């Protein structure tokens, strides 16, 4: 979820073409220090620390998995266009309430408008006491999206995931699959 300038978009598309798209089959899988089970297949991109899964293209469904974000790092691993102290950065000793704030602020900064988040509650994440909440927002064109986020801030780092999809048809279609993935998460 970055803001692209036209040249950057062109470059990114050129780079993406044929590069680093992996098939994720249904079943058990190891990802970045975690073990999970997926009921459906996905296309995976990204690298250690930030994996992006999609089924129809990221504008239609996107599951982002962030692992081991350290103090000082941006909550969505954004590296470009940010000064050292700027932006939504993880900090040691953060509470779940503040983790939610970070995620909301990062989403707003990446272009989400009319953003509402609700239902922050404790939730197991990879066996740790973590958090979960839901969101809704619109993209810049006005297409409405829904999202669910879950994660944990124990042990000095933050690991979390978020699933985003248009409210129209796409979110409901895959929500149950993401719930299953979340429930299956475990540390290796």
């Amino acid at each position, binding site marked *: 979820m970055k*803001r*692209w*300038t*036209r*040249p*950057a*978009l062109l470059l990114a598309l050129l780079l993406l073409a044929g590069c680093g798209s992996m098939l994720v089959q249904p079943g058990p899988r190891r990802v970045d220090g975690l073990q999970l089970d997926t009921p459906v297949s996905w296309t995976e991109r990204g690298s250690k620390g930030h994996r992006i899964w999609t089924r129809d293209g990221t504008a239609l469904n996107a599951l982002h998995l962030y692992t081991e974000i350290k103090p000082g790092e941006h909550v969505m691993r954004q590296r470009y*266009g940010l*000064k050292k102290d*700027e*932006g*939504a950065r993880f*900090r040691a*000793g953060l*509470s*779940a*309430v*503040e983790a*939610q*704030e970070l995620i*909301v*602020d990062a989403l*707003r*900064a*990446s*272009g989400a*408008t*009319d953003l509402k*988040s*609700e*239902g*922050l*509650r*404790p939730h197991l994440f990879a066996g740790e006491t973590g*958090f979960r*909440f839901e969101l809704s*927002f*619109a*993209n*810049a064109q*006005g297409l*409405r999206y829904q999202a669910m986020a879950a994660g944990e801030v124990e042990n000095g780092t933050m690991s979390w995931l978020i699933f985003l999809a248009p409210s129209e048809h796409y979110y409901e279609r895959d929500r149950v699959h993401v719930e299953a993935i979340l429930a299956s998460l475990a540390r290796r």
Partner: protein
Amino acid sequence: MSRWLLHAALLGLLTGCASTPNLPPPAVGERPSIESDEAGLWAQMEAFEKRLQYAPDRVTDPALNAYVRDLTCKLAGEYCGDIRVYILRQPYFNAAMAPNGMLVIWTGLLLRAEDEAQLAFVLGHEIGHYVSRHSIERWRQMKSTANVATAISVLSAGAGAGLAGALATMGAYSSLYAFSREQEREADDYGLKRLRELGYDPRRAGQLWAAVWDEERQRERGLMSAIFATHPASEERRDRLLQAAADGEGQRGFENFQARVAALRPSWFEDELSRRHFRQSAVLFARLRALPPLAGEAAYYQGEMYRKRAGEGDVTRALEAYDAALAAGRAPPAVHRSRGLVLRQLGRAEAAREAFRRYLELAPEASDRAMIESYLQ
């Protein structure tokens, strides 16, 4: 980031730009003839305006819209029917007038204005651009210069940089909203003129720019400013406005303005906090805290800023600010949740639990009840 590209490109263009003779003001209800270059611009603006009807960040609150619309109408005089105002929920100090009469104002500006005279000045300034046809002037100036191709490609690169950048650029015609110094002066003069004619205190204009400049100065290089490049803040501008109105007097419209924005202002404070540009927010919140009706609310948000910034000593500062907000009697129930979070950080577990309990008492429908309850165990 795009704001810097915009700025850089325009600095190259603005100095030494040949000026064209002033265009006559538009006739009331006038539309450009279809073969003209103005018509092409209008078509673009009309397409944009059509999309604006559905914009997810459009503020639709009827009372606020009626207030801003009526004020604009008063200021626009005979052009009242040719101008349409839109309010967008964006945490930046910005307003823009398109050549077809579309006027867009951002909530970051409504948060920063203190009274009706200041809002009236900004609206009057925009109407000044419309009456002097500055957009089409700029477009004609730009079209023929050798630099324009570079500028357009650089500026349209900015069009992809997020909502803020896109609105200011409105497609590839961003330079139309970055007027020359001369044009800004003309629009400022028009704004002051209207203030005087309608009985507002013209000194409020320079004072608004002084406040905006104070905030702008806090910006670290490379960070996106809350003050848009289309309304460059500068000492020169502030001084010029203060001087031009030095002998002025008139109404501020303070109570009326504060009453009209009271309902939505908390959400604008939240949006400002969300930017996480603490230096600028600190200056802004301190200024607003000095206004009696806002003192409690601004103190709460100042506390929130400290809590989020989490720098050295910020936890203590946050608690002090929350206490001030509570004393002023204008803090939302969430102040207790914030106190709880901060007290937890200080290791004061029992005091923290008490604060969380108070929060849940005052906000039984809180959406994060389940999480806060888990803190009580």
